[in-house]
Structure formats: structure tokens, C-alpha cells
């Protein structure tokens, strides 16, 4: 069927915890997402077959939509009236996702580029090896043998550069003789994307021991990355080797009408589309059960990171281990016994599909989410950097400051849009809870639009875009993205109690004025589809995005929550004294919880 003739599409995302199915239908006004179903993912025992969860989620879609999609265990295609779908597509991150090791010569240069290539292709990077990573050779060999990745990406050397170090890494890899994580009947796939002059030597050492593929150098010169060809190879190997080994995926691959994509690769595509279409800087975050992915596009440069053990179910206990109890407790608006909190978190870890039933448990889970998001963003900023090792001509003024190549390119002052996705953000009972979690964790400054993925469908749209971009975009802008409203935040904290800025908000209903005291927040309603002209006048020494003491004017669009004026300053500090009351007051300011 011609992709433009598609009338009904069923799409699933097989996540580590839940398989989410959506139905997309062509209506007179365009493509629309119409129904949604979900079921636990069944990669694990007793089912050990991902298709069971897919069938269960599609069965729920059938029930809710009244459309017959399944004939026993077969998806009915093409559609005919109220029966069947024209195509079925899927993304997947179940079974631990795509796990890779990468290597380069210099840790901060080719190894970092290799890491970016793997992350951008949707992988979890288990370790980054480099000639200068200070680990002795036997440790590297042991690590390769022990970690058993799904595939290995090897780079190193600019074209015509070092051969010795590249070959050394190939020798280590050959000595480790690694086995792939899944399956026994094939060799570990290795992609070589390094110095072209070393290809022959690499082939000689790895050709027989691994499933070696040679592709273009991902860092042909220091000043340029060429990540596309390596990412293409990763996707191909993912489909041919990795997916084919996971429980039930061989069957699933015969059902789909387009190649299965790793979930993060699909979400990454969507984030890039938004940024490209609107010409804006975007940060997207997808917080899942096992991992948290952060995507960013700043000045057309796309970056993705995955925090492999920061999530809200399987990895929830690791958030506690990494953030520390005090950092989680600071967001909880009531006193909680430490032993009880620790046990609660561990119980969620061992029964990851449970959901908060009481308001107190919801608040605790959202406190943990803030820390998972915060830590994942710190990690993202450290990898989303300019190319290191690049010679730059500096002006005299630049030579006086400390900036150098390799600084993070994430600049919150130029961020236009922050999009949240994943269960805790997409399914928060109140949208204001999602807004507050994102603001607390990412701490946007100046004027920033906030949005969430309405029901977690960015992955589905990412894969749909591969066959029908128009359909994906229509659904994205009409049904996927829920604008929460803008956050207007002062950068400087100000003295508690003193005003940090005043605002004037002009809408078609008139002009509203107000003052934001330091340490406080205020929500002004501005409905979805409405716009307002904002005039901000900061107090002396206070920066609201235009420089200290400088007024700022901006036109903003409304959202389902409204405009959030945030006078708490950056970096955001939760006062130790009266902590519970303060956090409670902030939550009340945005009407986050029922009273």
C-alpha cells in the first residue's frame, strides 16, 4: 500500500515495563490519534514472548475503539470498514534496549564522538574505552569479556592519523574474544568507524573473531563529526542481530510493516523534527521505568544521552543511591520516616509495575522523579558539548575568559521549548504536577515554553514518520503535544521576601499586573490558544533573561496550566528551615495536588 493511502495505523511501543498501543486514523481534518491501550510487556517469564504484550495491548485497543484488529493472533490488514488496520508498526526498548560498548583513541575526542554516535542511534552505552583512559590493558580486556554488549563500535584516529592506537584496541578486542549478550550462534557485531588507514590491520585482527563491518570514519578530521554512517550500521545490526535474538521478536518482525526502531531513536527523530520545523532550541526528556533519556537540539546540533540506571521502576532504587536520601526528601512536602521511605522505594523496585494509590505515595514518587530528571540532565550537559581538540582562533576578550573547546552547548537562557515524556510526566493526574517537576529538575530561566507528550506517543510517531512524515506531524501537533504554558523565571535569587520582578500581562481581555517576591511562585491562567504580551521589570541586580536589571518583553502562548512566574532564582535551593511548608506552598501555588 502506498504510504499516503494509509487510513488506519496501529502502532506499539514495547517498553521495559509496559507495551503501549495507539490507533491513528485518517479523518476529514487529517490524521488523528484516536484510541490507546496498554498491557505489561511480556519479554520476561512466564511469557518470554514480546508478542503476548503486543496482542494484549491491541486487544485493549479493540475493546476501546470497537474496531476488530485481531483475528486470533493475527493482525488483520488492510483495513476494511470497521475491521483491520492498514499497517502495524512498532518501536522497542524492552529486554534492556540496545546495549553497546564504544572505543576510541582519545577519550575526549574520538571516543566521545563514538559515544555520541551510539547514543544518537538509541543505544545504552555500557562503557567507553580509550587509549588514554588510564585503565591497564588487562582491565580493558576483562571488561569487554565481562560486559557482553549487543555490539561494539570502534573508532579512533582521524583519517591519516594514528594507526598504532587503533590497532592496539583491535588487539585487545581480539584477545577478549567477546560473546554477544543474546544468542550463541553468532559472533559479536563490531563496527569499525575509525582511521581509514587502519582498516586492513583491523580486518586482519578482528575479521575472523567478530562480525566486523567497516564504515566511514566518524571523526575524519578533528573539526568535524560524521556520525550518520556509523548510526546507519548500528540500526541495521540492531534489526538483523539484536532484535532477532530477543524473546518473540523474530515473530514481531514478521508482523510490522516498517522496521522496528529502538524507542530512543524514534523519540530523537521527533525532537529533531520539532526543532527543525519551528527553528527553535529544544530539550526533550523521556523518563521511563529503567532509564531516562534526554534529547536536545541547540543551534541545530542534536544530542541524546541515556542515563541507564535512572528510572522510576526497575531503577528507582538507583535514583536513591545516586541522589542520596536528603536530595529526595527535600521535595517531599511532609515528614517521612527514613526506614519507611527506603522500604517503599525498594518495594517499587521489586514490583515495578505497581502505581501509587495514595496521595502521599504519589508525592514521594514525584519527588524521586525530580531527582532522576535532575541527574539525567547533569549527565546530558556533560556530553552535549562542542567538539574537543579543535583549534580555535580566539579574540583578545576570549583569551581572558576560561572558555575553551568542549564546553556544554546547553544554554538555558536560549532554550525555547522543554518537552516531557514518560509515564510520570505524561500520566501525572494533574498537568501542573508535570510542569512543577520539570521546572524543579531542569530549572529553566527567562521565558521557556513547557509541554508534555499527552499520552506518551512520541516513539510511535517517530517510527510512523519513517513511512508517512505528514501523518506523523499532523498527529504530533494535534494530539501528541500538550502545551502546559510558559515558565517565566528569574535567574538571580533575590533576598527572601523582597520583590524580584513585576509583570504586566496584556491579553485580549485586558491588562493584569503583579509582583513576584523572591522564593515564591505564582500561576496566571492563560488558556490554550490564547496569547499574551508580557512586560517584565526586574528589581535592581535581578536578571530575568535580558541581563541584570534589564526589562524583558515577550509574547507568550497559553497552555493547559497557564503562565508560571517563578521567583525562586537559580540554582534552585530548597530552604532547610521550614522545608515541608515551603515545598507545600510551591505546590499550592500551581494547584498541584487536591487539598
Amino acid at each position, binding site marked *: 500500500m502506498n504510504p499516503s493511502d494509509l487510513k488506519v495505523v496501529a502502532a506499539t511501543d514495547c517498553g*521495559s515495563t509496559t507495551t503501549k498501543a495507539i490507533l491513528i486514523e485518517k479523518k476529514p481534518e487529517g490524521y488523528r490519534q484516536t484510541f490507546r*491501550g*496498554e*498491557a*505489561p510487556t511480556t*519479554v520476561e517469564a*512466564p511469557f*518470554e514472548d514480546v508478542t503476548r504484550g503486543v496482542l*494484549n495491548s491491541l*486487544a*485493549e485497543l479493540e*475493546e476501546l475503539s470497537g474496531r476488530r484488529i485481531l483475528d486470533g493472533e493475527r493482525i488483520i490488514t488492510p483495513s476494511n470498514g470497521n475491521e483491520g488496520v492498514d499497517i502495524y508498526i512498532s518501536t522497542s526498548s*524492552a529486554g*534492556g534496549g540496545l546495549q553497546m560498548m564504544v572505543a576510541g583513541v582519545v577519550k575526549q575526542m574520538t571516543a566521545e564522538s563514538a559515544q555520541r554516535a551510539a547514543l544518537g542511534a538509541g543505544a545504552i552505552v555500557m562503557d567507553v574505552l580509550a587509549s588514554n583512559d588510564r585503565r591497564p*590493558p*588487562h582491565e580493558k*580486556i*576483562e571488561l569487554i569479556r565481562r560486559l557482553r554488549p549487543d555490539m561494539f563500535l570502534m573508532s579512533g584516529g582521524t583519517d591519516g592519523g594514528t*594507526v*598504532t592506537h587503533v*590497532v*592496539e584496541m583491535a*588487539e585487545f578486542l581480539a*584477545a577478549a574474544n567477546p*560473546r554477544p549478550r543474546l544468542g550463541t550462534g553468532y559472533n559479536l557485531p563490531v563496527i569499525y568507524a575509525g582511521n581509514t588507514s587502519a582498516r586492513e590491520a583491523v580486518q586482519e585482527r578482528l575479521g575472523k573473531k567478530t562480525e566486523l563491518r567497516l564504515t566511514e570514519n566518524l571523526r575524519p578530521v578533528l573539526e568535524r563529526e560524521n556520525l550518520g554512517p556509523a548510526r546507519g550500521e548500528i540500526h541495521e545490526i540492531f534489526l538483523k542481530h539484536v532484535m532477532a535474538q530477543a*524473546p518473540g521478536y523474530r515473530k514481531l518482525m514478521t508482523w510490522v510493516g516498517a522496521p522496528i526502531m529502538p524507542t530512543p531513536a524514534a523519540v530523537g527523530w521527533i525532537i529533531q523534527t520539532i526543532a527543525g520545523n519551528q527553528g527553535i532550541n529544544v530539550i526533550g526528556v523521556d523518563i521511563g521505568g*529503567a532509564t531516562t533519556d534526554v534529547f536536545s537540539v541547540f543551534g541545530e546540533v542534536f544530542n541524546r544521552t541515556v542515563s541507564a*540506571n535512572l528510572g522510576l521502576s*526497575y*531503577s528507582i*532504587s*538507583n535514583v*536513591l*543511591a*545516586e541522589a542520596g536520601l536528603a536530595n529526595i526528601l527535600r521535595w517531599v512536602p511532609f515528614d517521612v520516616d*527514613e*526506614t*519507611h521511605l*527506603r*522500604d*517503599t522505594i*525498594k*518495594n*517499587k*523496585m*521489586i*514490583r*515495578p*509495575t*505497581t*502505581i*501509587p*494509590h*495514595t*496521595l502521599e*505515595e*504519589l508525592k514521594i514518587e514525584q519527588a524521586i522523579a525530580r531527582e532522576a530528571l535532575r541527574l539525567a540532565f547533569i549527565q546530558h550537559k556533560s556530553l552535549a558539548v562542542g567538539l574537543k581538540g579543535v583549534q580555535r582562533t580566539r579574540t583578545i576578550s576570549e583569551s581572558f575568559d576560561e572558555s575553551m573547546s568542549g564546553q556544554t552547548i546547553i544554554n538555558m537562557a536560549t532554550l525555547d521549548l522543554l518537552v516531557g515524556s514518560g509515564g510520570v510526566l505524561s*500520566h501525572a*493526574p*494533574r498537568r501542573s504536577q508535570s510542569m512543577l517537576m520539570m521546572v524543579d529538575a531542569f530549572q529553566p530561566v527567562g521565558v521557556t515554553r513547557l509541554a508534555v507528550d499527552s499520552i506518551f506517543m512520541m516513539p510511535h510517531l517517530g517510527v510512523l514518520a519513517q513511512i508517512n512524515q505528514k501523518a506523523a506531524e499532523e498527529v504530533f501537533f494535534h494530539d501528541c503535544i500538550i502545551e502546559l504554558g510558559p515558565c517565566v523565571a528569574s535567574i538571580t535569587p533575590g533576598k527572601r521576601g523582597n520583590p524580584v520582578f513585576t509583570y504586566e500581562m496584556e491579553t485580549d481581555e485586558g491588562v493584569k499586573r503583579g509582583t513576584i517576591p523572591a522564593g515564591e511562585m505564582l500561576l496566571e491562567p492563560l488558556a490554550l490558544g490564547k496569547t499574551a504580551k508580557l512586560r517584565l521589570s526586574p528589581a535592581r541586580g535581578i536578571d530575568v533573561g535580558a541581563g541584570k536589571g534589564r526589562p524583558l518583553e515577550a509574547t507568550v502562548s497559553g497552555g493547559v496550566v497557564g503562565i508560571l512566574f517563578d521567583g525562586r532564582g537559580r540554582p534552585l535551593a530548597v530552604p532547610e528551615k521550614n522545608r515541608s511548608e515551603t515545598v507545600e506552598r510551591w505546590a499550592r501555588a500551581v494547584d498541584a495536588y487536591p487539598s
Partner: protein
Amino acid sequence: MGHAYTPGLRVSEHAVVRKERRLPIAGKVLVECGAAVKARDIVARAELPGDVATVNVVNRLGIAAAELPRFMLKSVGDPVASAEPIAENRPWIKRFRTVVKSPVAGTIESVSRITGQVLVRTAPRRVELAAYIDGEVVEVFENEGVMVQAAGAFVQGIFGVGGETHGELVVVGNGPAAVLNPGDLHQGLADKIVVAGSLLTSAIYKRAAEIGIAALICGGIHDSDLRELLGYDLGVAITGHEKIKPILIVTEGFGPMTIAKATYQLLESRAGQAASANGATQIRAGVLRPEIIIPSPLAAARGEGKAERAVLGLRPGSPVRIIREPGFGRLGAIKSLPEGLVRIETEAKVRVAEVEFQDGSVAVVPRANVEAIES
């Protein structure tokens, strides 16, 4: 999630347990199909390649990598002893001679003319695979391992720490809700698998370790105690590699938790019998729960047991357990499964189940928070 439910832990009096025993790399299988094996019997053996030591010979000798073969005293494949010379230079003045010695005993694996490195691989390590359970070899995977089958009782825990062990099953304490004191454990429990009440404390664990108990089975444990006995905060539930004795199997969860009646009664009824236990848990990417297997020779002879368990899902009358607060651990039965979404205290609209408890009370619980009790 109309078609969603959380499969419960398996507690079965008559189960057929099949355990795949595979070597990490190809090796030799030592038993034949049909052989009766004991838990400690070695069923397969392999030689794991030894570790690799690298020697940067060119740097030590101050030569170019391409010249390396000329200076080598040993060739690829040659055995070398530890501290045995493997390369040397030949200066005019003998006093300046440099000899490079092998840091380990092993075999020369490679001599690189590009990197100038010599790799020496140590002797292979022998890996032996035990049967783990008393049973029968029902399948042989050539060069890889075997499938061992046994009939008997099978109990899954929710979380465990430590790997495989064997021993006689002993119940200590008075009932599934008992809270033990360290003094309740005595020297006679060495190498036993001990059912130890509803809450395991670090004091009890320490006492058990002193005695040399093989495994402790309990209803619950505080996370703070787990942290103390492990020495670190467990981030992700992937366990089994810990070298600890006793291993630990928690049947219900974190905090004080009465062991489920069915679990306790089954373990109590098998007291005195030989059991195998494994604390290995992996909740992500292919769930693995800790287990206790008590093979029964009689059951095996009679061919009893259920090989496959039916996956029935939730339906009215299904016995369930609440697996999250409020009411964590309460047992009941499904009264009804309303079709539509129901708004709960958090204001989330979710699929729910009406659960009737043993005291006749009824609660509306998110379906995600009930667990089917399976047998």
C-alpha cells in the same frame, strides 16, 4: 489494562522443574541423557581462556614496532614461565643489555609489529558446572551443558541475594509471622537452609553467618539492614553474584512481612528434606526470581507435577495479594473487575479490581497493585 495483570510468585507443591545448566563457553558434557544426578554432581566442564597480560616490549627496548620480531626470544604459541625472558636487545656493550621478562606464566598469544605489544595469556581456568538440583538429565546440549529435571515442591521468592546453594530445609520460629532473635539460631543449623520468620535483621544475619547457615528465607527485610549486610546501597535488582553465606531469599518484600500462608505451609511440610536454593534476582530484561526447590524422589517416580503453568489472568474468584500500600500483603479474592476507568485517591483514572478480603471487607484497588497467587 483489561488484559493486564501482574503474574504472581509461584508456590507449587507438585511442580516439574527444569533447570538449564550451560557452560559460559563450549566445553565437555560429563553426563548422559537419562542419568540420575545429585545437586553437587559435576555435569559439564570447560576451560576458560586465561587472563591476558600485555607487555609493551618496544618501549622497554627502545626499538621500532616493525623491528620487534627480531628481538623476540619467544614466538607466538610458545609457553613461558613467569619472569622468563621473552625479548632482549643486543647492544655493543653488554652492560646496556635490556631483557624483557614475562610478567606471568602462560603462552605467547600475539606479537604485534604495529603496536609493539606482546600479549601473554595465562593458563586456562577450569570451570565446573554442578547439577544444582537432584534430578534426571533429560537433555544434553552438545559441548554446552544439560537440562536437569526434577519433580517436587517449588517456591519463588520476590527478591534474593547470593547464588546457588544446597542443604537440609529447617524451619525456625513459631509460624510465618515470627520475629526471630539471634539467639534462636544454634550451631546445629550450619549448612542448612533456614526459614527464619517475618523480618530478618542484620543481627540475625550476622549470627547466621557465624554459624555457617547456607541460606536464610524470610518474609521481609528492612532496606537499611540489607545495606548493612551488603556494605553498599543496592541500586538495581540484579543479584546472584554476591559471595555471601548465607544467601538470602525474601518471599514478600521490604519491611516486616508475614510469609504468605501457602509458602510457609509448603516449606514447613518439607522440613528435613534436601533442598536447592538460589538468591539470584533479575527484575529487568528477563525476570529471574530467587527460588527454593525441594525435589521429591517419590513424586518423580510417580511422574507427578505440572510442567507448564497455565497463564489464566485475573477473573472473579482469583486469589490475589495486594502488592502496594495501602494494605500491602493482604490476601483476598477478586470480587469484580469493573470495565471502565475509576478515579483513585491520587486523582489518576485507572483500571481497578474489587477485592474481597478474608475478613469480608472489600476494597477497590488499582489492578496494577494486585498480584495473582499462582500455584
